[in-house]
């Protein structure tokens, strides 16, 4: 059973395989979630525009509009909603494309029910944590940088850009744990919710990207520092 706070969260299930969708819907409802089932990409986008959802479980090979396109369009409207791609496509290229389209997690078929439910729970918990912490302090400033955690917009000196949901989560987590060492494993557990497909190298890539955005000199970071053999630490001391 899901946490009490997560009960009644509305999930959009986008799956064209009837037998799989029936089983998934039953299990998610049993966990206490409310589920809306869309049989194709077009129906998914219609449903998404008409109702408020807390999470999307999305197949890729869908009639009319494929899963990548659905994720991209959803991301344009809502940068925060967690998207879990559930697909038979196992190629690394597809995984990268899925994550680049805006998905937060990627699970391949056939999958274990418990694993899926844990991932869903984890994503909803992270969303709730993110919303709670962001509402307290939606805008955070450090040096010449300013991040709005509600709409992911950033200002760095004269540049303006938008972070992806995952980048914002990593940044939020580091800021929440300011001046504390955050290990790669901890980031994997709390931001990616221990995705076994994602290696620690992915965390390093994310950090490298964030340094490029926010550090005056990414090769000599002053905000997101590396601690050899331990992880990363965020510092916001006046320069």
């Amino acid at each position, binding site marked *: 059973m899901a946490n009490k706070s997560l009960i009644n969260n509305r999930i959009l299930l986008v799956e064209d395989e*009837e*037998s799989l969708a029936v089983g998934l819907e039953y299990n998610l409802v049993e966990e206490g979630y409310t589920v809306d089932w869309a049989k194709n990409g077009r129906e998914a986008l219609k449903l998404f525009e008409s109702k408020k959802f807390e999470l999307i479980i999305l197949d890729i090979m869908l*009639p009319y509009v494929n899963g990548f396109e659905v994720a991209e369009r959803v991301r344009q409207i809502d940068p925060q909603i967690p998207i879990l791609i559930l697909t*038979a*496509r196992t190629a690394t290229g597809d995984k990268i494309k899925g994550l680049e389209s805006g998905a937060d997690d990627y699970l391949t*078929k056939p999958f274990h*029910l418990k694993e899926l439910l844990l991932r869903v729970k984890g994503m909803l918990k992270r969303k709730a944590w993110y919303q709670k912490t962001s509402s307290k302090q939606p805008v955070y400033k450090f040096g010449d940088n300013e991040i709005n955690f509600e709409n992911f917009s950033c200002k760095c000196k004269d540049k303006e850009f938008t972070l992806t949901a995952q980048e914002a989560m990593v940044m939020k987590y580091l800021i929440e744990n300011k001046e504390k060492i955050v290990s790669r494993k901890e980031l994997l557990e709390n931001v990616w919710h221990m995705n076994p497909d994602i290696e620690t190298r992915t965390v390093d890539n994310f950090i490298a990207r964030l340094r490029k955005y926010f550090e005056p000199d990414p090769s000599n970071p002053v905000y997101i520092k590396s601690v050899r053999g331990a992880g990363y630490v965020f510092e916001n001391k006046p320069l």
Partner: protein
Amino acid sequence: MKKRQSLFYHILIFVLAQIAWLALLGLWIYWYVFNYIVFKKVGDQVSPQLTYDITNVVPFVIGLVLLIGISFTTTWIFRHLNLQLRLNKLYDNFIGNVTHELKSPLSSIQLNLETLNSRNVPPEKRKEFINLMMKDSSRLQRLINSILEISALEQKKLAHDYQVYKAEPLVRQLLNGSIEQFRLSEGSVTINGSTQCEIVVDRNALKIVLDNLVDNALKYSTEPIHINVNFSHNTNKFFIEFSDKGIGIPPKEQKKIFHKFYRIYHKNVPSVKGTGLGLYWVKEIIKNHGGKISLFSEGENKGTTFKIEFPIYKTSKKRFVNKLLKRTERNKERILVDG
């Protein structure tokens, strides 16, 4: 993107090879003509014993033949390379589709089994899950059979059971079986026409043909399905016209639709299920019966009509049809001996 780039490089290499060949040809002709002129002008003075006879032309001709040979070989290699690239693309599509077709029912069976194992499922829902699992296992069985049978068909290893049948009652009976199998509603299939002719067919193979056409009509119909089947014949052939009111097939795709692994990827296609083998299988079966299949569609959303023709027994393709019957006899005898 990578595939497009690789095609671009192949074309570029081909164009460069052609330019290099033409330049070489030009240089060769230029060299020969230049030397010939010089030789003619000063040859007598330098070495009077040298003669200009026909043998001097031989190296020139050999050079030309060699260069033209290189050009033909380059073109031939380029043509086959392109063919290989197209085949690779189709093969990739096939692997992707088969993976999807295998994993989808498998994951649904696994999910439903895990659900039954870990939850206290009410009896009605339990029955629903079991039915869904049975449906999925038949889907897996159909897929595996189709791949194995197509392979056997291609290698001529399939033991057909060709028999003489009255065409109309047989097709009607098989169609009714398909209607039942695909749980089509009453009135969704209309059968017209009447004929007394006889044809030689393998009943199971013909069932595969009709099932595939019904499945296709189901996959590519957005509105409630409606299939119209019409029988007719002339002196030599028995015809089945199978029409649906589905999304139709664009004219440029109509020729390719019977190719192995070929599938139409279009935004208006209401289903992504399939391996790209169904219509290829249908075509191969009909070809093995000495028949033909063609299709007609006015375009998108205008439906599709498949026209199948079989030779009428004792009237058309007598030698071919008798060979089919003899092959069945031989197979039966072999089974009896082995048994």
